């Protein structure tokens, strides 16, 4: 694949897509000169065809679910139904202004209301707010609610949030944003939380605990009810990081496990697209204790009319998280998806994502790869450690990851969770066929064979991508973050 010039280098002074702008300049003379821009901004100067061609060609340099198997652990890269996109982009939805009165948005608000209801049901929580714009913002809202709860009770000695060492980075980062200290606890050898360590960590200083269940090591936390009791008895609350909800959708409910608040990554479990980095939506489910602190806005219903609930309705709310009501278009996609799944379909998400993970784990184990926690059931994801390969063959998890790209597979998540050496966290999702799983196993075996014959070959991968391995050190040291006018 040939290199693609920067869009700036395709330009010529004075060129622009003429169909896209007014034919004439307007008179700006009434804006005093001191407020006016002196020099035009550095911008591409290209034709419409150049834009279309450039970004079409660039797109082809991406892996994506629509082109490749993408078993990226913790990220739930499953099929994003195209109908979710086309229906969320109906003109009636797209053109509606966020400040338009509720009366003019009953179609849209009705979808959101029904989505709230379905998410509450499927998580076992009392209510749902769709305001958070991603998982991390959902986490923020949840922990901020925990804080508001303690504050409201005048219980102000609680300064710590407990977080397992396997947790996603957003968990500790969120706790800090809410003004808490992070207390990390280890994962036991069996993959569950180390109960002794937890017992020791819990105390009157505990504001709450953030857990993912199944955890990011890919197994179900078997003593979750015990943990809930322990934390609750100490006066702390439980936060559920719902990034892994795909594993239990319709099978088990976080509310039933004892959690007080949860966020759901709709861009994972409810299959809204990742979009090369976002947008997502981090809806939160709220239990009894935290109800008064639900973030705003939230959709309410009154006599068949839908409306936005604000601080008037939720006076103890933690407040708003963004200027408007959340990632509405993402929420519409999730709604369409949820409706297509329905009750049975949701349960089957958990069942088949779990089947796929266990099958893939079994197959890799049979091929001699070291599964972390081989005695446990995989949830919707599992870990293999390439420590052995790294030691014997000199080829790391990162090398396997890069070589997989050559073979047409997106690499699994590598080196996360941090506690497992040379790990790959593999999440096949329910939408992949058994043949694709078999193909992946074959690729892993092939790479190991290649490494046995010629380790340098594997370490030099990828070969078939638009670029070979990139110099990340140079990228970070000699920062080049924008086009400076030279030809590239």
């Amino acid at each position, binding site marked *: 694949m040939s290199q693609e010039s920067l869009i700036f280098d395709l330009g010529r002074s004075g060129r622009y897509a003429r169909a896209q702008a007014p034919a004439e300049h307007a008179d700006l003379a009434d804006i005093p000169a001191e407020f006016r821009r002196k020099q035009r*901004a550095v911008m591409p100067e290209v034709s419409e065809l150049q834009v279309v061609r450039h970004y079409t060609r660039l797109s082809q340099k991406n892996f994506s679910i629509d082109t490749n198997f993408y078993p990226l652990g913790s990220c739930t890269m499953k099929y994003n139904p195209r109908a979710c996109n086309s229906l969320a982009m109906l003109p009636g939805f797209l053109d509606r202004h966020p400040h338009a009165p509720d009366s003019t948005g009953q179609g849209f608000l009705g979808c959101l209301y029904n989505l709230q209801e379905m998410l509450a049901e499927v998580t076992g929580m009392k209510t749902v707010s769709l305001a958070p714009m991603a998982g*991390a913002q959902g986490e923020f809202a949840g922990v901020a609610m925990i804080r508001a709860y303690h504050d409201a009770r005048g219980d102000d000695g609680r300064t710590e949030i407990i977080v397992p060492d396997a947790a996603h*980075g957003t968990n*500790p980062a969120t706790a800090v*944003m809410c003004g808490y200290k992070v207390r990390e606890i280890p994962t036991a050898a069996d993959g569950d939380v180390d109960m002794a360590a937890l017992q020791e960590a819990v105390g009157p200083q505990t504001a709450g605990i953030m857990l993912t269940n199944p955890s990011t090591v890919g197994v179900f936390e078997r003593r979750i009810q015990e943990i809930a009791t322990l934390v609750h008895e100490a006066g702390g609350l439980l936060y559920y990081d719902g990034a892994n909800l795909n594993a239990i959708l319709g099978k088990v409910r976080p509310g039933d496990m004892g959690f007080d608040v949860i966020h759901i990554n709709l861009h994972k479990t409810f299959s809204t697209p990742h979009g090369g980095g976002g947008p997502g939506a981090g809806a939160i489910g709220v239990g009894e204790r935290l109800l008064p602190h639900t973030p705003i806005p939230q959709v309410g219903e009154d006599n068949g009319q839908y409306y936005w609930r604000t601080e008037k309705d939720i006076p103890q709310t933690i407040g708003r998280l963004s200027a408007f009501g*959340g990632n509405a278009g993402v929420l519409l996609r999730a709604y369409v998806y949820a409706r297509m799944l329905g009750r049975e379909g949701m349960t089957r998400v958990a069942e088949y994502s779990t089947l796929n993970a266990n099958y893939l784990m079994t197959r890799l184990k049979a091929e001699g790869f070291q599964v972390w926690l081989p005695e446990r059931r995989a949830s919707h994801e599992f870990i293999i450690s390439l420590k052995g390969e790294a030691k014997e063959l000199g080829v790391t998890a990162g090398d396997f990851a890069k070589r997989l790209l050559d073979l047409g597979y997106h690499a699994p998540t590598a080196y996360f969770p941090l506690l497992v050496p040379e790990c790959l966290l593999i999440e096949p999702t329910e939408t992949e066929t058994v043949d694709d799983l078999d193909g992946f196993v074959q690729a892993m075996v092939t790479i190991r064979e290649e490494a046995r014959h010629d380790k340098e070959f594997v370490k030099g991968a990828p070969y078939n991508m638009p670029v*070979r391995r990139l110099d990340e050190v140079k990228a970070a040291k000699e920062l080049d973050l924008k086009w400076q006018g030279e030809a590239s």
Partner: protein
Amino acid sequence: MPFIPHTDEDIRRMLAEVGVDSINSLFDEVPSDLIDPGLPGIPEGVSEMEITREMNERAASDMLGPCFLGAGAYRHHVPAAVWEITTRGEYYSAYTPYQAEASQGTLQLIYEYQSMMSGLMGMDASNASLYDGGSALAEAVLMAVRANRKSKSGRILVPDTVNPMYCDATRTIVGNQGITLETVASNAETGAVDVETLEQWEGEDIAALVIQQPNWFGRLEEAQALTDWAQRNGALVIAVVNPTAMAVLTPPGEWGENGADIACGEGQPLGIPLSSGGPYFGFMCCRKAHVRQMPGRIVGRTVDLEGRTGYTLTLQAREQHIRRNKATSNICTNQGLMVTAATIYLSLLGAEGLERVAGHCHANTRKLTERLAGIKGVSLRFDGPYFHERVVELDRPAEPVFQQLASQGILAGYPLGRHDKRLSNALLVCATETVTDADIDRFADALSHALAKAA
């Protein structure tokens, strides 16, 4: 089972391989009293055909009509090419570009985006998005507090001409970290901040001053003087700007002697549909000196093993997946696809096109407000230069008039009384390049009619 490809034969074979006799056995580690909640509240699944019909009906019920509402979200023409390309599967269904070699499309696009945004803002560097304008201001405040090493106070000056929803969101987000937002009152006549007002903070430890341009009332602030005051007093300057306006207004990088330190705002005007409020994206740019304090993804240009140009996420040690509780922010998933759209939008318009669009926004707003001012019972409030929003004052409370015109299909502006009782007769109106003379006539006629009746 929509979207699940397994045939009965596949399932049999897979279960046999795993060595269990049913899928339920795969859940045998889950406490049995937790299993299978039943979900009576979830309806049966429907086919794509059925949901398509439902959504068509719902979308049709959401009214469209001339829009004079802005207040943080603006109806602009979005070129068809923007979303036809943005929704290509390769952009739409990709993850964050962690595997650089398999993500050069998204990575190069982000590098181009960063270049365009930096250019538009006149700043050194840009990140690759935050959630929205409101949360971007919150992140900018947190960043300023980190970056301003000389300040220990956590005090931030926020004029009352900053979008009140942004202030609300910022309070929610930064409230637990010992940071205080102190309100700077604007001049009630001009609807903008007088530099003199700041003198009460002269010599105090202030981490940052926020300046919104154009401000919440559509008015242009004396950004030059405000910036100089702040920096003279050891405070950083956080600019909150409308990106369309930056095609014609002095960009933050050129404010005062040294330029603003951080520029942020709502990216929606750059090719993102209104869509009831989201997804949009927050943008953030900064000076080189602060780049390591900036939250969010950043892409750098580098070379590969063979010396070819390539792009990769860089400075990841700022981020939560590396730095965990020491990260600059908890943000992970951002609004990447919106950045894709904005990049295509900016490429199509260029500086030339954006300047024309901005010019027509201004001219249409001038035309609109001059027309409205001629209506009995309407006057203009806040004198001084503006971009594409202005405050008009009615002879009666604005909220009922707004609701009445909405029921006629006209979005008549934003009732400012929602945030400030003193402005309960005021409407913040906006006319972008999409507004026609006929739209203005329709609005003016409907408004005259509404005001003709006794208040």
